[in-house]
């Protein structure tokens, strides 16, 4: 049974929230415009809430895969392949059922699982048949195979993950190396240029709104984040994985504290998601052994899921307390 704190992920939560806020409007706790604002904010936070939960599930899944991989030799190839395709077909069936019955947690969750499972299966086939080390080809195949899933999904997350996979598959490695070298020589200049390009693309798609000063402020935020991420890459490239990790997490923690003080819950969730993501990346960087990494991933995924559960529980308790005070 799904813990109560994960209910916000279900479609019913939105219905509940609408009903609950409607009661508040009737009790004259809030106005109807405030109700709309609450519903709009809850809706906009969905992506990152989903993102953090799915990242947690991804970590636990990866941990289990690593643990299995640690005792890999004992399992016959046919069983490995049969198991992978069995899991994949089940995920696809459950995503179909979930989407048809309009249960987004089941439908979209299994769709996301199938998306990851396709990548894992490609890796597995590559391992069993010793398919060389052409990562771009594997990513390209993953992008092509999962394209129908991107079309079906109503969440942006799968699409957001699919784009870099497809880009990595299509753009030759030399292209990425050239970009990386350009940044290491001119870090500020290249960040400004890439930031401007991103800004132009975002404007073309109507993603940039608000005042000019607001746009400049958002642009500076993006540049600051981009510089930290690229700086982190450079440190990691020079064997300073932990220093890069600590600097990035410190930066994100400071940003998160500022978000709490400003009451900016959307940015707060975004930063939490980035901290969780950085933790996952660290495991890839400081690989020790499959069993160790597997346990680490399972624990990290558990901590991420527990954090979301705790966060939602606090929110629920606050809502109940607010209502109790009124009564």
């Amino acid at each position: 049974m799904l813990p109560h704190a994960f209910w916000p992920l279900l479609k019913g939560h939105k219905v509940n929230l609408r009903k609950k806020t409607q009661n508040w409007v009737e009790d004259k706790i809030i106005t109807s415009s405030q109700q709309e604002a609450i519903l709009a904010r809850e809706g906009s936070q969905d992506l990152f809430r989903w993102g953090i939960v799915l990242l947690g599930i991804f970590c636990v899944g990866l941990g289990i895969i690593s643990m299995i991989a640690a005792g890999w030799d004992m399992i016959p190839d046919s069983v490995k392949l049969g198991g992978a395709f069995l899991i994949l077909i089940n995920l696809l069936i459950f995503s179909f059922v979930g989407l048809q019955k309009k249960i987004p947690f089941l439908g979209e969750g299994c769709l996301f699982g199938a998306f990851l499972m396709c990548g894992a299966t490609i890796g597995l086939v590559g391992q069993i048949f010793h398919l060389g080390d052409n990562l771009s080809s594997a990513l390209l195949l993953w992008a092509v195979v999962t394209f129908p899933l991107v079309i079906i999904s109503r969440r942006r997350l799968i699409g957001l993950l699919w784009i870099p996979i497809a880009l990595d598959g299509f753009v030759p490695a030399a292209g990425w190396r050239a970009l990386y070298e350009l940044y290491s020589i001119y870090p500020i200049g290249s960040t400004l240029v890439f930031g401007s390009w991103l800004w132009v693309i975002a404007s073309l798609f109507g993603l940039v709104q608000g005042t000019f000063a607001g746009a400049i402020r958002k642009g500076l935020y993006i540049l600051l984040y981009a510089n930290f991420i690229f700086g982190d890459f450079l440190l990691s490239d020079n064997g300073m994985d932990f220093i890069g990790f600590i600097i990035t997490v410190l930066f994100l923690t400071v940003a998160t504290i500022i978000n709490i003080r400003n009451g900016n819950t959307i940015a707060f969730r975004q930063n939490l998601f980035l901290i969780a993501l950085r933790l996952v990346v660290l495991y890839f960087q400081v690989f020790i052994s499959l069993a160790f990494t597997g346990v680490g991933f399972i624990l990290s995924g558990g901590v991420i899921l527990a954090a979301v559960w705790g966060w939602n529980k606090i929110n629920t308790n606050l809502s109940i307390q607010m209502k109790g005070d009124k009564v």
Partner: protein
Amino acid sequence: MNKYTMLVALATTFLFLFGWMNVIAFQSRSGPEVILSVKGYDPRDLLSGHYIRYQIDWEKSNCRQFANSRCPVQDFAESGRFYIPEDKAVALDGLFSSSDQHTFEIVYSYKPGSIPIAKKLLIDGQEWQKIIK
């Protein structure tokens, strides 16, 4: 989205991947075997245990096993991977480091026009499992 469109999309994903795996399995089983000398090193791989990353040593390979006694260099990738269990990696890495004392070969399933698929790793002419226990 229409129920049938969704079904087709989900089935396409599965069938494409399943079909690809079967083509690879068929090629691996059906192609004639060729043996090529290799040299290499052992980096790390997170999800797949350890693997040997090698380069084909064309100078030491026997080209008479190919048509017209010519090695089809362009058909083989510059480097390849051969996956091995994690607990055997250190011992195998040690052998690779002293490769001047041993010969390392890969048995490929190879048919002209199709991608060669590595099948076995041989050390001094024997399957590696017989050398490293």
